[in-house]
């Protein structure tokens, strides 16, 4: 636990001082939400629940991949990643520390994005919005696991910044479908029973990618 805490603290402290990843996430989220409002011209409120939910998830995948690329660039500077790999750390521990940091960044970015969504789409801070928290949280866990694993790959390639979204978005499709559906149903005030099946898919996705990261991160970060 000590090593995990130290790794996580390092990433969070770096972010608190520079703020690059979270600022990238928030800036891009706002741009994407504005672009979607221009593209679809929503009236807002419950009628446009599906568009609002979709906008939020689109903002998450594109801002999230950009944020992960940004985080990796910072990691590569000054050979920081290599130093981490030289240390006698369990690679699975490294994965979970990186994933948790990623999760915190995306969660902060998404919280800001939700507030902006409420303003842009004329929603209310009510129970419906609160009901969207669960699918969003489940989506963020899966997305953090996925981008942490893939960033380990893309971060060490010349074309990494281009490759990361190309690799991440198709893999994220099941969680995207389930997340948008569950969020739209929540915003429209549908009963919990209707949303349950989508939660199951989100949980399955989270379990799959967290265990994939746990098992395969070693193969990704090994040098040579």
């Amino acid at each position: 636990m000590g090593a995990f805490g130290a790794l996580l603290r390092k990433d969070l402290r770096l972010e608190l001082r520079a703020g690059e990843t979270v600022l990238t996430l928030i800036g891009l989220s706002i741009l994407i939400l504005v672009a979607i409002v221009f593209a679809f011209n929503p009236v807002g409120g419950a009628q446009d629940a599906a568009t609002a939910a979709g906008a939020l998830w689109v903002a998450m995948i594109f801002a999230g991949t950009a944020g992960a690329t940004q985080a990796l660039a910072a990691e590569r500077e000054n050979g920081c990643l290599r130093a981490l790999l030289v240390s006698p750390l369990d690679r699975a521990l490294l994965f979970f520390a990186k994933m948790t940091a990623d999760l915190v960044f995306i969660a902060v970015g998404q919280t800001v994005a939700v507030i902006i969504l409420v303003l842009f789409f004329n929603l209310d801070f009510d129970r419906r919005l609160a009901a969207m928290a669960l699918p969003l949280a489940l989506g963020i866990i899966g997305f953090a696991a996925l981008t942490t694993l893939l960033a380990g790959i893309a971060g060490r390639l010349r074309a990494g910044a281009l490759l990361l979204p190309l690799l991440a978005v198709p893999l994220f499709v099941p969680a995207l479908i389930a997340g948008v559906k569950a969020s739209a149903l929540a915003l429209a005030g549908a009963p919990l029973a209707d949303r349950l099946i989508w939660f199951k898919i989100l949980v399955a996705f989270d379990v799959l990618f967290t265990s994939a990261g746990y098992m395969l991160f070693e193969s990704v970060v090994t040098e040579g």
Partner: protein
Amino acid sequence: MARSLSVLGRLLTVLLMLTAIFMVFAWVPNEAEQGLVQRIFYFHVACAWVAFAAFALVAVGGIFFLWLGQTVFDDLAYAAAETGMLFCTLVLITGSIWAKPIWGTWWTWDSRLTTTLILWMLYGGYLLLRALSEPTPQIARFAAVFGIVAAADVPVIIVSVRLWRTIHPAVIVTREGTHGLEDPRMVITLLVSLAAFTALLVWFLTLRMAMLRDADRLQTLMRNIALAEAALED
């Protein structure tokens, strides 16, 4: 021995393919409702089977490569990804050609079409990963990890896409159930076509794997020559 076996295999593939083409164009009867255009089905289904089998091989090759570290498994995965991509593209094209006269549209977000498109994007990503980087053992490991994760994701993709489509009323009802294989000649034609395309997959895979192995040998040879030249100059 290996050489005569491969010549025999190729002869068999050509024979099977010619038979399949003859059966599809000249022997099998027209389907009652869809008519002539239904004949593309024999190639379409065979391409789909080959594409999915190849994508499974990408994951199998990746698992064995990570486990045993032998280049031959990485070559298998790479060759399978390329071949799978080719046949997956053909599935989408032949499907569109069939869908236009039968469904009245080139494309619809039916669950099978959507899943195939996502697979196509996944393995397109795999090939881009390999194309945009130098062939090193590290890239081979990255590709293996991605190939395994992609295959593990496929069941979740299938379930989610199916739910996404069944909860929405489909604009066009699929007629997969009514392909009309009542005539035994249709079943035989499909089986021969499947066999021919499977043989073609094996041919493509062995050909591509041999090329990858030769490329690797050539690279080693050139590196050794460069080293020897450098040693001579000293």
